């Protein structure tokens, strides 16, 4: 209704968006890298642990999965420094939050992957005299990785989208860049159209690339 699209101002401030997109990707990559470590350690621990440890790990997983990410982001950035004497930048705080967040989802992914490793493979490992540690490294984890790779890709793409929540603590990622242009130029429809396209293209490009990796990984063995 009388709204004329004008993208000039968007292109003039496009560095806010391109830089933001790179930061979003960076946040997602660092977070999932830490999250994978958390997820792997806890999943391996979970499947061999007693009741108490299982209970604690399950509590962590269920807590994170059932609380909004934005609340966790606030809690770590505004809440935690009031009770423990630490100082960190918004960016560090967000990465820590997203790592813990992805860790909780990945524990579940890896745990079900470990449980799906065929019994026969583990027995075969035993039969050729592998120690439990060798069985884990050479038998269980590689098979688990192949089973969980698609779920891992999906988690990564959804984390990439979740990085938008970093804008609430002023981390200058893509959504923050969108808001900046929104408030400073009022080219509202244009900026969100462009940002939507950027999220979509990046997301689907990632999906495509990760599916290629999965296929390569399946045939390489």
């Amino acid at each position, binding site marked *: 209704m009388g709204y004329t699209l004008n993208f000039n101002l968007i292109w003039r401030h496009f560095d806010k968006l391109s830089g933001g997109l790179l930061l979003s990707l960076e946040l997602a990559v660092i977070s999932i890298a830490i999250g994978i470590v958390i997820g792997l350690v806890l999943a391996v621990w979970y499947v061999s642990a007693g009741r108490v440890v299982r209970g604690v790990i399950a509590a962590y997983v269920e807590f994170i999965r059932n609380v909004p990410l934005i609340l966790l982001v606030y809690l770590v950035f505004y809440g935690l420094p009031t009770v423990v004497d630490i100082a960190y930048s918004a960016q560090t705080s967000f990465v820590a939050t997203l790592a813990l967040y992805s860790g909780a989802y990945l524990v579940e992914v890896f745990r079900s992957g470990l449980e799906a490793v065929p019994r026969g493979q583990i027995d075969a490992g035993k039969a050729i005299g592998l120690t439990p540690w060798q069985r884990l490294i050479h038998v269980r984890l590689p098979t688990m990785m192949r089973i969980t790779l698609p779920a891992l890709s999906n988690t990564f793409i959804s984390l990439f989208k979740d990085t938008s929540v970093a804008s609430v603590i002023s981390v200058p990622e893509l959504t923050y860049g*969108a808001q900046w242009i929104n408030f400073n130029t009022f080219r509202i429809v244009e900026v969100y159209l462009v*940002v939507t396209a950027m999220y979509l293209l990046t997301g689907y490009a990632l999906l495509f690339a990760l599916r290629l990796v999965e296929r390569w990984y399946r045939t390489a063995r």
Partner: protein
Amino acid sequence: MLGKIAYALPFLAQGFALTLWVSLLVVVLSLIAGIILGVGLVYGPAPLRWAVRIFSDTIRGIPILVLIFFVYYGLPAVGVHLQSFWAAVLALTLFKTAQVVEYLRGAVASIPKGQSEAAMAIGLTFRQRLAYVIFPQAFRRFLPPWINGVTDAVKGSALVSLLGITDLMQAINQVIGRTYEAMPLYILGALLYFAVNYALSLASRRLEQRFAFIRE
């Protein structure tokens, strides 16, 4: 500290009620819209299928936060004026609708082809096939993930606090602004969200186990 928080409890309760109200609206509206679009995606003519597919893939491909800002700031720019509450409900409903569409598609696709062929063979019309053969079976596949997905609506509703709507998240931030008791209040808020969502995910798991015994 406890006194200050106790004083704020009625205010927090109002915020919590608003969170539940937004979630409920979103869940009901998206269920209706999602079923209509989902049936369109599975059985509709090609242009409709394409339209629903593009809608669903676009919505699921962008962050909910971007969707919320787009609707909230974008609609007034093109001359559509909604109260911020309804803009938030609309944005979350769009997001949830895309999910419901996919749950429905998955549930219907899991019903063996033979079922609808058999229904056709005994002369049931399209509507009868859906009502008596496909939907009753697909329902069992649809319900557990859908209930689990309600938690996404509850969690997503926390983002409407950014539009100045006093939901639980916003109420907590406001009380912290006045009392400086950040940690206890964030934990209280987390526990409230947890209570709602955990109950939903338990219900989902129960149903899934129960329906797992019924095989086609």
